[in-house]
Each structure stands twice: as structure tokens, then as C-alpha cells.
């Protein structure tokens, strides 16, 4: 959460705040500070800190509302507070999509170990990875090909996208749940055969 209290109230330009509020609601995608800045005509473009102060003030304004401003990887967006999710879910007749274990494991490997080739994923999962799955992930724009490995066949190297983080409500890869530590090996002599 970016919700911090704003100290010097005079730094918040209320006009800018109001414009930023309208823009964030109207935009269909999260907006970064730079994107917000870019909407202003060049000559009256507020500095970064002004936009940031406006965003913080907005976070504060919506503190007690049913919706709030949230930061995800590609920028800020207004979203329904999580305690309201069950109510909102009642609005939609369609069940939210469920993802298979195979897909979740694949995206997890790409997220934690990126960049990885399909071979790397297969190595970790111990089974072959269907092209279908890779295409589904590319299609959802959760992953993208960032390069090709200098190896025979020049396999594609996959990495996750900002959209992936946006979907999972994260603002960076670092915000992902930490991987469990690997225990040290403690191999003792083999027992009864």
C-alpha cells in the first residue's frame, strides 16, 4: 500500500489532484506518474513530486471509501477494497477462471527464475511443457519472449510482464511471496535395502 500521510499539505496542488483523480478513474489501464505527467500540456506539466503528492493525497481521500487507490506494476489504479470483493463477486454470474496446477507452476517458474527457456521449465517440473500452455501465457500477455538463448536451436527466453504483476495485484516481482529456503543436504549412509 502506498498510503502514507502527506506532511506539507501546501505541496498538494488541489487542481492537479483533481485532474489526476479524473484521469485515474477514466483510464482503462493503470497509469504511471510519467503517464499522468504526459497528459498535461508541456508548458504546464507538473513536476514528478507534484503528481506524487497528488497521488498520496488521493490515497488518503479514499481511505474510508469502498474503493481505493492502489499501486501495481504498471502504475496506479482505483480498485474495490478487498473486503468488498465478496459483494462484488455476487454481481457477476460467470465464475472467475481457475488455473491448472501445470499453468501455475509454469508461470511461477518463469516469475522466479526468469529469464528461462522452455527447457529450463521442463527441467524443474520434470515433465514436458505443452506449447499450448506457453501460448496461453503469451496470449494473456503474462509472459513475453525477451531474447533468444545463444544455444543450439536458439530457444526463446521468457520473462513475466507488468500485466502479470497487475493481474496479481503486485507492484513488483519483489512483492511476490518469497521462495522457501533450500535445506542443506544431509545425506547419510543408505539404510536397509
Amino acid at each position, binding site marked *: 500500500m502506498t498510503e502514507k500521510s502527506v506532511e506539507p499539505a501546501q505541496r498538494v496542488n488541489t487542481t492537479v489532484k483533481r485532474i489526476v483523480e479524473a484521469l485515474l*478513474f*477514466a483510464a482503462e489501464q493503470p497509469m504511471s506518474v510519467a503517464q499522468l505527467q504526459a497528459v498535461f500540456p508541456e508548458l504546464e506539466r507538473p513536476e514528478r513530486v507534484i503528481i506524487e503528492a497528488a497521488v498520496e493525497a488521493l490515497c488518503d481521500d479514499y481511505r474510508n471509501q469502498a474503493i481505493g487507490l492502489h499501486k501495481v506494476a504498471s502504475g496506479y489504479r482505483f480498485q*474495490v477494497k478487498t473486503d468488498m470483493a465478496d459483494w462484488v463477486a455476487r454481481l457477476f454470474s460467470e465464475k472467475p477462471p481457475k488455473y491448472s*496446477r501445470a499453468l501455475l507452476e509454469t508461470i511461477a517458474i518463469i*516469475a522466479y527464475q526468469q529469464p528461462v527457456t522452455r527447457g529450463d521449465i521442463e527441467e*524443474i517440473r520434470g515433465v514436458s511443457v505443452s506449447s499450448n500452455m506457453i501460448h496461453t501465457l503469451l496470449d494473456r500477455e503474462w509472459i513475453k519472449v525477451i531474447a533468444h538463448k545463444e544455444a543450439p536451436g536458439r530457444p526463446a527466453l521468457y520473462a513475466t510482464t507488468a500485466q502479470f504483476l497487475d493481474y496479481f495485484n503486485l507492484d513488483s516481482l519483489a512483492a511476490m511471496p518469497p521462495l522457501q529456503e533450500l535445506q542443506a543436504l544431509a545425506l547419510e549412509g*543408505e539404510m536397509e535395502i
Partner: protein
Amino acid sequence: MSINLVAESRTVTAMVAGQPYLDWPDDLYIPPEALEVFLTTFEGPLDLLLYLIRKQNLDIVNIPIAQITKQYKIYIEVMSNFRFELAAEYLLMAALLAEIKSRMLLPRQVNVEEDEDDPRAVLVRRLQEYERIKKAAEELDEIPRMERDIFIATIDTSNVNVHKPKPEVQLQDIVLALQGVLKRVDQLTHHTITKEALSVRERMAAIMIKLEGSGSFLFAQFFTYQEGRAGVVVAFLAILELSKAELIEILQAEPFGELRIRARVGGGND
């Protein structure tokens, strides 16, 4: 822990490594009837091994290879008894386990660094790596996500009198996109479309649009002289294709009467 299985001359349940098993082993933790559902839930040999290890509270960093190999083989055997299409990966793992086991049986060399040389080390490392990804995937499934827990606050902007520009597309973009698809589709030949077929397809669409909602037309109304011979052929092929696809009906009220064409409605004969 060791496994004791008594062999008697009764009906054999499974053959494991050439040895007959008469009963389901005690340490097979699920009723055989449940196997069918159960076995398909494994994501691969590593997943199955992890299950065996965790189920018996074994220490992953110090797994008793002989025991786990035996267990694994039983499962594999049961799987093939149920005529599962066994993925090669499972058999590969069985072979690997057997290899490790045999190497463990060889007398140890005295002055070799233990862990480095232990044939289990690589396997254990892989199991650990897989387990942490498996856990990470489970956690990822739990954290809030769009469509299920996160809903974007939207507003109506139609009162704002602006026209949102539509995305611009170059013909080239479409061509490139199709190329991408073709590249992916291995069986290119299945989707070969000739230029001629394209014009037939276009004509098919044109005919359907013409027929939409408005009764029937005379057969002759689908042909124009200006198009010449090629045009007539295209139109004729399009009508045949549409008829074959059961999208249109060709009607003749009386012998030698004029043919009429109309869109097929409703029904669904499949």
C-alpha cells in the same frame, strides 16, 4: 522402515520388478479404486516422488533411496495395470532411481567427499527445487488476483464528449499476425488457402449477407455478366460450398422450374 510383502500363491495383484504382489501393499496410501482419479492429479514423476516422501514423513534431504524406489515402482506398476498412458518421464525416473540404488550398493570409496559424490544429491536437489516451485504456485493461487478478488473501479466516460481513438492497424500487422499463427501451426498444409479459395470465401460471405433476413433469391440473381466466366465460377462454387455447409437451401418448386436460394433457418440437425 522396511517393506514386508508376503508372497503366496494367490491371484497376483501386480508384478513389480518381476516379483508377484498378491495384495495391495500396506503402504500404498490410497484405496486402489481411488487411483484412477488420483494418479492423474500428479504433475509428473517429481510430484509423485514428493508425495511419497511427504506422505511417509521422510526427510527430503536424507531420503532412503531403496524404500522410495520400491514405492515408486509399485505406483508405476499400478498405473500401467490401469492401462494409463504412462508418460515417458515416469519411466525415466524409475530408471534413474534404480541406477542410484545400484550405485548406493557399491562399496564406498573412503576418501571422497560425502555429499558431492552421493548419487542421491542431484535427485534431492531437483526434488527440493520442484517442491519450492510447487509451493510458490500454490501461494500464487492464493494471493488476490483480478477477476476473483480484485475488481477495478470503473466509471462512465460517455458523458465526456470525446471520441476515443480506435487502435490503428496496418494491413502489415494483420499479415504478420497471421504469419505468427502459421509459424506455430505445425501442419501448415491443413490450413492452406489459395487465392482462388479466398475469393470463393468472400463470395460465400457476400451471399450470406444478401440472404440475411430477406427470404429467397432466384439462382440467377447471384450471377452478373460483368464478372465474366471467372466470376460465375466463383459464385457457383460459393453456392455449392454454402449448400455443403448447410447454410443455404437450394429449392426448386417444380421440375425445370427456376432454382431459388434461401438461408437455412433454425433446426440444427446434428
